[in-house]
């Protein structure tokens, strides 16, 4: 009796064969970052996955927020000088380019002129910084797609450039070398020879870079056709830099609105046709070579003379505001300064960081691809979290 009822109970609870089975895949949410080897710092992506496919991506930023803009406004004395220290540390890969933008903004605000020699040196060092930063991209992008060797190749070249920065400005990454009106001090005597040695070496290094992965079939299949951003969408998002140029628009601030003395140099702006990850990679490779061209011309014409303009010792610009933009290694970088005319620190500091804007294109690139592609697409944006979060 008891056995029969137990069997009956089992019959009732067991799923009947005819019952509809729901075999849909379950979506999985996976948290990539802030501690993940290939989110370029502390970026966090919350990926919604269906199997290996990315259904949705949500970006979270702010883990590296240090209040660089507010810190820039907080100096009690020497405020204009202090702001540059924090600016250097936002985009730690293009520090000298950003310094250039900042001093140009201060010069515009205070009406300071810059001597020729200082301008040339700024161009040379700025382009070296661009190479430095693109080297880092090369390494990181290789690592994102699974090749470890590019990193070391890139760092061998970076080492030489940074050694030069140390010789010129005393520090390898944050030289804090530009000043409103010129430079902190003149370059060392052997500057020209050393730069020449670096660019001679760089050409071989670029060839090595190319031999290693540029034509590699696996690398091609991983990056080509991935993360396509079309031109209208790119413009809608406000994307700039290599990302925008890969869509076919030859927009480069150095060309479109020549600042400093960029109008004196002949260089090409590489553009892509489809706007995929591979073209972004190629564009950065080509930009390194174009930077070398610019450096060669600047070295040839490097004039003598003073390196400091008519800058007053204690900087106190008149009331007003200034916005300056440059092409840094990631795109259109802008510095906005407001002076209240009284204090020796800017009243308002605002940086327009290209990384932050470019990062918004992530959703367009990643949704519908595989997890592995999400990493590569993020790598192709070439973000620096210090600049995104500021």
């Amino acid at each position: 009796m008891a056995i029969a009822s137990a069997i009956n109970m089992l019959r009732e609870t067991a799923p009947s064969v005819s019952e509809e089975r729901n075999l849909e895949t379950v979506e999985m949410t996976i948290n990539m970052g802030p501690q993940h080897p290939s989110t370029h710092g502390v970026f966090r992506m919350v990926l919604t996955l269906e199997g290996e496919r990315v259904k949705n991506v949500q970006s979270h930023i702010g883990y590296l927020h240090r209040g660089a803009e507010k810190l820039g406004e907080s100096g009690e004395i020497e405020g204009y000088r202090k702001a540059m220290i924090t600016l250097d540390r936002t985009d730690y890969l293009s520090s000298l380019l950003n310094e250039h933008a900042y001093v140009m903004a201060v010069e515009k605000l205070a009406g300071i002129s810059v001597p020729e020699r200082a301008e040339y040196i700024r161009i040379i060092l700025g382009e070296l910084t661009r190479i430095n930063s693109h080297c880092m991209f090369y390494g990181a992008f290789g690592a994102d797609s699974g090749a470890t060797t590019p990193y070391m190749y890139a760092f061998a070249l970076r080492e030489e450039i940074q050694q030069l920065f140390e010789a010129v400005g005393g520090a390898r990454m944050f030289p804090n070398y530009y000043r409103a009106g010129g430079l902190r001090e003149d370059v060392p005597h052997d500057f020209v020879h050393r730069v020449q040695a670096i660019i001679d070496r760089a050409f071989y290094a670029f060839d090595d870079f190319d031999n290693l992965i540029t034509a590699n079939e696996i690398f091609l299949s991983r990056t080509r056709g991935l993360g396509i951003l079309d031109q209208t969408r790119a413009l809608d998002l406000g994307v700039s830099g290599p990302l925008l140029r890969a869509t076919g628009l030859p927009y480069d601030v150095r060309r479109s609105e020549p600042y400093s003395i960029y109008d004196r140099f002949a260089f090409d702006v590489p553009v892509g046709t489809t706007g995929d990850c591979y073209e972004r990679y190629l564009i950065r490779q080509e930009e390194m070579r174009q930077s070398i061209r610019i450096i060669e011309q600047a070295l040839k014409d490097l004039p003598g003379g003073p390196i400091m303009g008519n800058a007053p010792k204690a900087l106190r610009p008149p009331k007003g505001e200034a916005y300056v933009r440059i092409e840094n290694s990631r795109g259109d970088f802008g510095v906005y300064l407001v002076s209240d005319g009284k204090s020796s620190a800017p009243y308002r500091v605002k940086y327009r960081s290209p990384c932050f804007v470019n990062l918004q294109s992530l959703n367009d690139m990643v949704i519908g691809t595989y997890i592995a592609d999400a990493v590569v697409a993020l790598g192709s944006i070439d973000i620096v979290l210090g600049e995104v979060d500021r």
Partner: protein
Amino acid sequence: MRGVLGGFFQTLKSFLTKPVTRLYPYEKPPLEARFMGAPSLLWDDAVDEVVCVACNICARSCPDDCITLTGDKYTDGKTNKKNIIKDYFIDLGRCSYCGICVEVCPFDANEMSPHFELSTYDRMTLVYDKDQLIEIGRGVTRRTGKPEPVGPLPGILDPSTYR
């Protein structure tokens, strides 16, 4: 296929070239003459005392607020200083090695030294006091604000002089 083989060939080439690594703790890296290590206080050998006059400008200009100093009345009469430092602390854990304190000093009393080996188990040991700052500044000469020396280049510092 060509690209893959190119990669193999390239790595073979780099396998056979000399490594670029420097064996750091055994083999000191070449430091440039302008290398900015920790800020240090300069010693005036002529009168055998510290140059600093405790004017506090460096402390106020430091972007990281890592300099703390107290002054004292100067009574020795060897120079025409009014004050001399009693205590002078720099928190090297916070310092960003920017060189602003050196640039703003009106008395040429400090300079960035080549001292950079700061690894420690206790971050309080990174707060350097006056004596330590003088010690790391020994042999350092004031360079900032002075014209570049002509003639033979200062070149690369001798690694044995690091402290």
